[in-house]
Structure formats: C-alpha cells, structure tokens
C-alpha cells in the first residue's frame, strides 16, 4: 500500500515546504497551500473502497509501525482533508493581514497531517505519535493570537497531556500483555481477555478520547480553545480535530475491544460501560446546550454546541445497535459540515466587522452579507436538525435507536437538547443577521469570493446529504458491517427500520410542492413594496436611530430562571485544583519558565524516560 505512505509523505512534506515557500513569497505559498490541500483530497478520494495494512517502519525498539486503511479511516480522512482544504481556501483572505502567516499555514498542514496519520495508523504506537503531533500543533495554533489565547492553549494542552498519559498507560499495558500493538492483531487477542481488563482498557482509553471529544466532565478546555483560536482553525478544530475522539472511541470500542460482540450479553461489564457512556453523552447534550443559550459570544456559543453535539455522537455509538452506530458516525460527519460552515460564517462576519463576534453589538447584516446568512441559516438548520438537512437524518437515526432500544429517558435528553439548540441558534442568527443594522456597519461589503466558496460548498452539501442521505450512509454502512453488526436497510433517500421508516425524497417533494404552492398563493396578492428598515412601526413615532433593536439579553426570562443552576462547576473545580497545585508547587515553579518549548522538552523527556524504563525493565 504505497498510497498511504505517499499521502503522509505529501502531508508532512507540505508542512516544511509551506513554511520555506512562505519565506520566499506569500502568493507562491498561498498557491502551494491550496494545491497541496487539493492534492491531499484527490489522493484520499482515489483510495475509496480499499482495505489493507502496510508496515512502514520496524526500528522503534523492534515494534513494527504500520498503516491501515478501511472504510472507517477513509471516511474520517476524506472529511479531514476536504475540510482542511476548505479551511485553507477560507484562510487566504481571513489571515491575509496577520503576522506569521507561514507559520500558521504550516501548522495547519501539520494538524492535518497529524489527523491523517491518526486515522491511518495501524498500530497503537504510531497512533500515539501522530496523536501527539496533532495535539501539539493544535496547541500552537490555538495560542496563535497570543493574549488570552495562550491561556486557552495551555488549558487545552494540559488536559490533552492528561489524556495522552492515560492513552500511553493503556498502550503500554496492552503491549506488556500481548506483545503487539497492531490493531488488527489486538482485536483478535482481546476477545479472550477478562471482562475486567476490557473494562480497564475502555476506561483508560475512554479518558483519553473523552478529553479530546469533550465529554461532559472533561470538556472544560473546549469553550476557551474554540473561542480564542483563529476562526478558520476553529472550524477545523471543531469539525474534525475534536472528533478524533469519536474515531478513537470507535476504534477502541468496536475494533480493539470489539464491544459489539459483548453488548447484548446479559452480564457483560462492557455493556454497562456503554450504558454509562451513553448517559454521559446524554448529559453532554443537555447541559452544554442550555449553557450555550446564555452565551453572548458567537464563537463561544458555537463552542458549547460543539460539546453538545458531541453528546449525540457518543450517545449513538455507545448505544451500540447498527443504526445507532451508523447514526453516531453520520452525525460526526454532519456535525463537521455544519459547524465548519457556522464558524466560517462567523469568521466572514469577523473579517468584515473588524473581529466583532459579540452577539450584542451586531445585527441586520443579512442585507450586507447574504451568503454568510445563507451559510449560517443552513448551518443552524443542520444543527437543529430541520428536515431536509443532513443533521435531521443522523438525529432521526439516533432517536430511532433510543426509542426502539426502550431508552426513553436518553431519547428525551436528546430531543430536549434539540429544542434548546433552536433557542440558542436562533439568537445567534437573529443577533448577527436580523434586526436593525447598526449605523457603523452601514457601508460594510460582501465577503470575498474565497470566503464565499467554502460556505457555498458546505451549504449545498448540507442539503445534498439531507435529501439524499444514502450517499454517505452507504460508506457508513460498510463501517457498521465491518464492526460486526447487521447491515442497515438503506436506500439512496432513506432508511427502513422495524419500527418506522424515513423517506427524505418524499419529504423533499412535499415541502417543495408546499413551498411552490404557498409562493403562488402569496403572489396572487398585490405586489409588495420594498421599504427600508427605518420605515418601521414604532407606535407612531419615527424609528430612533441605532436604538431600536432587541438583541441584549435575548432570553432574559429563561436566563433568570436557569442561570443559577447552570454554572460551569467542572471548570471551576479544575481551576481550583490548578490553583491548589500551583500553590503547593511554588518551589517547582522555577522550572516552568513560561516558554512553550521548555514544556515540550520536559514532556518529551518524560515520555522517552517512561518508554526507556518500560523497554529496559518492563515493570508494568
């Protein structure tokens, strides 16, 4: 399988080349970046429907490091590369007036390459290495803007290191037990393991992936990181990078441990783990969605939704039926599409308004930036799960699983989460695009073409996957089958299950017919006269300039009711611990110079020491 090696070579080579080219000429670098990201997309697209494994290096203490590809990794790789490509295109003008652009691009490619490495790695060692590359380059990108961004980045990397340590411990334990780290081999070997050991593996890897995927008690890094990162990277971060946690969960539950085989056994401890995970998913849906309602920062609002939507994926894959897993994976893909779209819309607004993302000070931009509005509208429709958008299909699958699995309370959490979503995203849409346009934005321009292009592409994808969900579901069905589940009954436009069916093309036809009929009816009436926003009812007075828009405290009555209950207690808890640690280790603080490179050095030293100790004396 030379394809994967070439791919990673291109991906990692591109990182250096971008930086070097950036030193020569910025336009050359930009062209190269776009070409490179397109090449990655093409290469991965060519690898469709291949499975296999190839060892590329044996040198690391004799552990063979390998790549593997199957439907699961292809799907994630494809999504990663496409979104990376769109993000690069989007960044062209967004980042154009910043410093250190070459560094930004090369780090973006490094993140991309790291993610590709993660999804293609065939053994847990290379998985870990690529995981670390991904995490560290992410840290550098989150802190790109300096100031509060560095704090956000540190929060991220500290939690990430905790996760990595957990993962490392699990990896080492697997190696000592079975003498191999190859995923395919492990999946055969762990079948015979004791349930206790399986549970240990699930929990220890679950912590690692739970931190990455921001499952509820481990989510605290996410809001700050999403908010402070450069917006095009926030898109990548929320769309794919965070969802590497989902990939990890899928890998550990359904490939390494193979929980599918245990799920329906009555006394299985694995199934109880899945149940706990599902409840964590449900909590992750409800609480962040309600917290999102109270946010006034556009990106932070989306960030909390990022956490909440992660809950749906966890809920789907943890519930462990074929439709649930398929729904979870599909939702991961859909979420990537619409959250990237939403972040890009926000970024377009930020680009034109000079970085404003405070929901209380924007408004009325629909007339000025219609493309961004369409992007945001379809994005929130997907996020809510309005029929005919992709989010509807995946949420439908998850609800269906929960209801036919007789878990009405989990289904209730998921459904009420959707309703909470409507409230907050409508506020998002209203406060940015609707209402009165502030005076200072009267002369604002449209976003440039390379910002519009990704928005248009992603918007149409949302509708395409919503109307013809069979396209992605075919790939996902392969994944589900490869996990050992029954095949789903999928057609191009819908799903049939024992307790009901979904036919999106009929729905599409009905809604289209309804729209046309109503439009015609509307047009029977007299022609309407377009008026300016100042020509507005103000109880007989003239509209006061700039003081006639309801944006601040949009859901004040609800806010008063729920805000006492919805503090982010976990974040406070962790910050308290952090303070306490800092207080206790005042003496050690001299080592921490505050320079990031030093931290990297310490950690690399620590990891190598651990590995060395393990290799030499194998105490675990």
């Amino acid at each position, binding site marked *: 399988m030379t394809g994967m090696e070439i791919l990673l070579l291109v991906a990692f080579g591109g990182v250096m080349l971008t930086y070097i080219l950036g030193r020569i000429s910025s336009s050359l670098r930009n062209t190269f970046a776009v070409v490179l990201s397109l090449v990655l997309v093409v290469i991965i697209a060519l690898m469709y429907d291949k499975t296999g494994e190839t060892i590329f290096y044996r040198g690391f203490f004799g552990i063979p490091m390998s790549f593997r590809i199957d439907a699961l990794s292809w799907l994630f790789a494809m999504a990663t590369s496409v979104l990376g490509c769109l993000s690069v295109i989007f960044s062209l003008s967004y980042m154009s007036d910043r410093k250190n652009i070459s560094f930004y691009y090369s780090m973006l490619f490094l993140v991309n390459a790291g993610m590709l490495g993660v999804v293609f790695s065939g053994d847990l060692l290379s998985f870990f290495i690529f995981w670390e590359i991904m995490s560290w380059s992410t840290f550098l990108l989150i802190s790109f803007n300096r100031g509060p961004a560095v704090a956000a980045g540190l929060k991220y990397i500290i939690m990430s290191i905790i996760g990595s340590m957990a993962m490392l411990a699990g990896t080492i334990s697997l190696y000592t037990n079975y003498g191999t780290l190859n995923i395919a081999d492990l999946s055969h070997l762990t079948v015979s393991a004791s349930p206790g050991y399986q549970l240990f593996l699930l929990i220890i890897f679950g912590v690692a992936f739970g931190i990455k995927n921001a499952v509820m008690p481990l989510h605290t890094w996410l809001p700050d990181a999403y908010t402070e990162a450069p917006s095009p990277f926030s898109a990548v971060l929320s769309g794919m990078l965070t969802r590497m946690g989902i990939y990890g969960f899928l890998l550990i539950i359904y490939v390494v441990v193979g929980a599918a085989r245990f799920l329906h056994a009555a006394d299985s401890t694995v199934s109880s783990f899945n149940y706990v995970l599902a409840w964590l998913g449900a909590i992750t849906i409800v609480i962040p969605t309600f917290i999102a309602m109270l946010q006034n920062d556009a990106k932070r609002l989306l960030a909390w939704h990022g956490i909440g939507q992660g809950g749906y994926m966890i809920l789907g894959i943890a519930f462990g039926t074929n439709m649930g897993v398929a729904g979870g994976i599909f939702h991961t893909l859909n979420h990537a599409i619409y959250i990237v779209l939403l972040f890009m819309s926000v970024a377009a607004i930020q680009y034109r308004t000079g970085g404003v993302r405070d929901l209380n000070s924007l408004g009325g931009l629909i007339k000025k930036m219609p493309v961004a509005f369409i992007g945001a509208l379809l994005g929130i429709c997907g996020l809510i799960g309005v029929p005919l958008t992709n989010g509807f299909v995946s949420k439908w699958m998850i609800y269906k699983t929960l209801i036919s699995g007789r878990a009405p309370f989990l289904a209730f959490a998921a459904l009420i989460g*959707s309703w909470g979503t409507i409230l907050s995203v409508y506020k998002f849409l209203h406060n940015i695009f609707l209402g009165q*346009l502030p005076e200072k934005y009267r002369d604002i321009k449209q976003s440039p073409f390379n910002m519009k292009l990704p928005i248009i592409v992603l918007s149409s994808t949302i509708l395409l996957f919503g109307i013809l969900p069979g396209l992605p579901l075919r790939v996902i069905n392969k994944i589900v089958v490869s996990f050992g589940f029954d095949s789903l009954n999928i057609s191009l436009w819908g799903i049939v299950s024992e307790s*009901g069916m979904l*036919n999106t093309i009929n729905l599409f036809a*009905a809604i289209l017919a309804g729209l046309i009929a109503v*439009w015609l009816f509307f047009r029977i009436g*007299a022609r309407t006269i*377009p008026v300016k926003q100042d020509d507005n009812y103000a109880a007989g007075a003239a509209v006061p300039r700039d003081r006639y828009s309801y*944006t601040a405290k949009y859901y004040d009555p609800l806010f008063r009711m729920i805000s006492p209950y919805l503090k982010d207690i976990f974040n406070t808890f962790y910050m308290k611990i952090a303070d306490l640690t800092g207080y206790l280790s005042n003496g050690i603080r001299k080592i921490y110079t505050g320079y990031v490179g030093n931290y990297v050095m310490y950690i690399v030293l620590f990891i190598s020491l651990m590995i060395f100790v393990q290799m030499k004396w194998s105490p675990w």
Partner: protein
Amino acid sequence: MHIIELIFSPLLALLIGVFFLGLARKVMARIQWRYGPPVTQPLIDIIRLLSQKSASHGVAFNIGLVMSLAGSLVITLFLPFGKIAPMSNSGGMLVILYLMLIGPLGMAISSGESANPNASIGISRKLLLAMGYELPFLLVVLALMTAYNTTSITEIVSLQRDTGWSMFTFPLVLSGIAYLLILPAMLGVRPFEVVNAPQEISSGPLVEYGGPYLALATLQHALAFFIGISLFVNLMWGGAANPVIFFLKMLVVFFLGIFVNAVFPRLRIDQAIRYLWRWPSLIAFAGLILVCVTGS
C-alpha cells in the same frame, strides 16, 4: 386515490383551521354577550388582506413566511385525519415533531428580518414558550411511543382502536393529564397568549405584517390550531376511523380550548414557563416512569 388525498388533506386542514378561527371568534363573542362576526369572517379578512399592498422588508421576510406556511401544510400530510394520512409511511412521529419546527422557525426568520424589536421580543417569547411546553410534550410523546413501541402515528392510532383511548388506558393516564394541561399552551390560547399579546408588544411577530403577509400568517395560525388539536385527538383520544367522527372530536377539544381562553388573563412569559415546567412536567415525567415500569 393517493394523489387526491395528497392534495385534499392540506386543503381540508386549511379549511377546518380557518373555520375554527371563525368559530372561535363567534364563540368568544357569545361568551362576551355579543352577537359576533359571521363564521366566514376570517375568510373575508384573508381576501381583503391579499388585495392590500404591504411593505416588504427583504427577501427573508417573504421566504421565511412562505416556508412557515409550507412547513405547516406538509405536517398535515403526515397527520391522520380519520383514515386520511397520505404520507404517514414516509416518516412517523419524529418527523412530525421536527416538521413542527419549520413553522416557528420560518416565522422567526421572517419577523426577525422585519427589524422591529416588538417582533423580536415576540419571537423570543414564542421560542421560550415552545421550550416550556415542549418539555412535558416530549415526555408525553415518548411515553406513548414507548408504550406502543412504535414511532408511527398511524400505528399509535390503530393500536388505540384495540386498547381504547390512550388517555384512559392505565399506564398512559398521567401522560394524558399532562397533555391536557399543556394543550392551551400548544394552541396558544389565553393564559399562554404571550406571543402576540397586542396590548404588550403590539401583536409581537405580526407587528410588521400587513396585506398578503398577514394573510399567510393568519393561515399559518389556523393550521397551527388545526395541528395542535388534531395531534391531541390522534395521540390521546384514539383518532378515528371516520373523518366525521374525527372532526367531532376535534370540535370538542376546540371548545375546551376556547372556554379556557375566555376565562383567563394572559400570563407573563416567565410565569408561563414556570407553570409548564412545574406540574405538567412532573406529571408527564411520572407518566413516563409509569410506562417504563409497567411496560416491560
């Protein structure tokens, strides 16, 4: 036959909805010692509105409203009216629940575009109220779906033919009571008429609608009324095999709603949410637990 039903059922729903609006005005008038307008008054209003030349605030102002009415029309294809349910095999209760979003969302976008703070306040109230009643409503619907082990509304209706009305069958009694308690909120009648509240926020989302826009909004309101009642009859009062009987059941629910409308003032929005999240939610929650305990 199928094609006829497809075209016929939304029109029937519109007709019944508009009839209900007219009847509501007549009945209210009679309670208030008045003679009242003719039942056809909403129809006259709609004709008049369509011929008026109103102000438009932009493309989303038009599209949102059209989307809202179209979404509501599509729901009627999924809801059984007696035995008429032309699209019930394209999706069940979950699709209906989600299609019910399109109406408010379209209205929200449209009136948000109108750039009037009264409209924005109205929309914020509408979404909050929806949040309020959706909590118990989802619990009720989940109890039904769990009890009958299906997500298809036609199956729920046909199963009730064997067991009797779900409101009066044992594990669903509590859910039925909870549904009855939130029904005024779902219909938007008076204790919960916080969205339009002409005396407070100048009819809220409708503030900038005139002419054809108001005609569409009136039709949307009529349909929402129809859908709310029809859903209740289907889920709790056993639907009907016969459209006429179904209509009579709807009429009974309609009168209940109007009487409640006549004897209560309007609540504040926070009081409305507090009410909806207290008793109806608790009862619905207990109902779901009851279903889970007895069902398996």
